């Protein structure tokens, strides 16, 4: 296969966000679409997420990660998306020039009319959470362990402690148990679960794996290999509570302590990054501050569900296709969307009210503090309440979604800005 040096659209990354964007751009009229992937096969991290739970919203089916990815890979090939695999993108410029390198094709220069950033996210590492103690072998991120166990066929240890109650951590606790390991403990520094409740039930409770909230690792013990960790209880400010230390013998410590959008390429291109989400500032079509550069999926903010990553990719691909065909559109007014009371962040950061003519606009957010009681999610323009939605509770681990309806067109148009708040009912 030969690759052209000009494409309507180039997508960086072939995970669910990138695949959805590529398919959607093709279906919405983009002529040629190229996906560049650094791995040797398309699919992204879904390929190592062999557990079920994907696709409940998009397909109304409970699929394993690879099966979810396979459907989109097949569709992408079917609609004629080109793939450039085993290829690393080195740079993207603000005028959409992409330089990449691959063993097979050498040094590549590609000019695109539009770019979709779909690089996903990375796991937070030991250094980023400043874990004290010795530095023996046997401290890994949960995702690394997941790749070894599920794809490459290696067991990283026999007795595990997992720090962090993120979904990958809990899912790995079950997976390692399936493969004959013992998971001694899951520790979570926050007073609440950081992953989904269903994963607590079907990954930890089902296999009698103990979870300790408000606990962390005080020390990693071992010279060549981890021999034990010292766990400790913490107060609300994460201060160690003296006298609560416990030595837990183990040979491996897995870290499931959060994901960070991967935006090195975005920054190089001049894309502005929101310090709260660690992803680009985007409008409701997922366009960044640089015209013609879009972003989709976990590179924007880390989603709870792959289904929502797909939805975001579909929107990004559609907006990119529109820009390719019609050129940049003049917008009369861009409305900023701000995180109000008890909301940590909102995506999109701005919206074009005219898009409400075509249909509803999805707004997603995370709550700052958990509220275990019925809440209102309220959208206001100044003091004026435009829309509110009831939710049974609000938890930081579970993203909240609302839809702005086309009926709000005039009010949104007249607004100087919207703010979203989550408060007790």
């Amino acid at each position, binding site marked *: 296969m030969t690759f052209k040096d000009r494409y309507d659209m180039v997508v960086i990354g072939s995970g669910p966000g990138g695949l959805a964007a590529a398919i959607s751009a093709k279906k919405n009229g983009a002529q040629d679409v190229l996906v560049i992937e650094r791995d040797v096969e398309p699919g992204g991290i879904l390929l190592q997420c062999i557990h*079920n739970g994907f696709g409940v919203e998009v397909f109304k089916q409970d699929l394993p990660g690879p099966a979810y990815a*396979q459907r989109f890979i097949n569709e992408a090939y079917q609609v004629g998306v080109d793939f450039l695999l085993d290829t690393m993108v080195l740079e993207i410029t603000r005028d959409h020039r992409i330089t990449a390198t691959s063993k097979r094709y050498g040094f590549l220069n590609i000019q695109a009319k539009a770019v979709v950033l779909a690089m996903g996210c990375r796991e937070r590492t030991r250094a980023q959470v400043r874990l004290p103690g010795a530095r023996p072998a046997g401290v890994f991120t949960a995702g690394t362990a997941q790749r070894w166990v599920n794809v490459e066929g290696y067991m990283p240890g026999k007795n595990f402690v997992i720090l962090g109650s993120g979904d990958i951590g809990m899912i790995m606790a079950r997976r390692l148990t399936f493969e004959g390991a013992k998971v001694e403990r899951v520790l979570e520094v926050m007073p609440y679960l950081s992953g989904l409740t269903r994963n607590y039930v079907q990954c930890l409770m089902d296999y009698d794996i103990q979870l300790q909230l408000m606990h962390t690792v005080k020390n990693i013990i071992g010279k060549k290999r981890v021999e034990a960790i010292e766990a400790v209880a913490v107060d609300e400010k994460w201060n160690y509570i003296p006298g609560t230390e416990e030595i837990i013998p183990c040979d491996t410590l897995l870290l499931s302590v959060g994901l960070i959008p991967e935006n090195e390429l975005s920054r190089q291109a001049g894309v502005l990054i929101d310090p709260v989400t660690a992803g680009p500032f985007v409008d409701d079509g997922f366009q960044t501050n640089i015209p013609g550069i879009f972003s989709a999926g976990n590179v924007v903010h880390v989603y709870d569900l792959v289904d929502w990553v797909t939805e975001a990719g579909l929107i990004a691909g559609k907006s990119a296709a529109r820009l390719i065909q019609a050129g940049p559109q003049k917008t009369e007014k861009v409305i900023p969307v701000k995180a109000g009371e008890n909301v940590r962040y909102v995506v999109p950061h701005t919206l074009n009210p005219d898009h409400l003519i075509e249909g509803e606009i999805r707004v997603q957010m995370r709550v700052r503090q958990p509220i275990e009681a019925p809440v209102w999610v309220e959208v206001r323009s100044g003091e004026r309440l435009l829309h509110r939605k009831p939710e049974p509770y609000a938890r930081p681990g579970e993203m909240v979604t609302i839809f702005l309806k086309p009926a709000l067109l005039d009010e949104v148009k007249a607004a100087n800005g919207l703010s979203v708040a989550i408060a007790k009912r």
Partner: protein
Amino acid sequence: MPTIEEKVVCVTCPKGCTLQVTRDVQTVLKVGNGCKRGYEYARQELTDPRRMVASSVRITGALHPLLPVYTSAPFPKPRIPELLAILRMVEVKTPVTLDQTILEDVLGTGINIHASRDMSKIT
């Protein structure tokens, strides 16, 4: 007959509703909170708990040494260890396509084991 009040977290969808279940020894009488699927889940969970199981089997001639597989339907929870023991002994050859049946009617449950993805032969 005395009734029992129980809380069951529904795992059918990512919402993870906490269901308020009222039941006697054999039958679920009432399920509060949650949807229709939640009622079904609570009934199932308290009489015959089942889970979707995903794991891997060996594969030869592919890019990777393992093929991810999953159960075609929720599998009886108490028998999961037996299922895993069987999967450890399975080895398949390329090519495999998504949803190809790897094992049929495993342990007499009527449930099949399916491939979670395509895996072609590498040359």
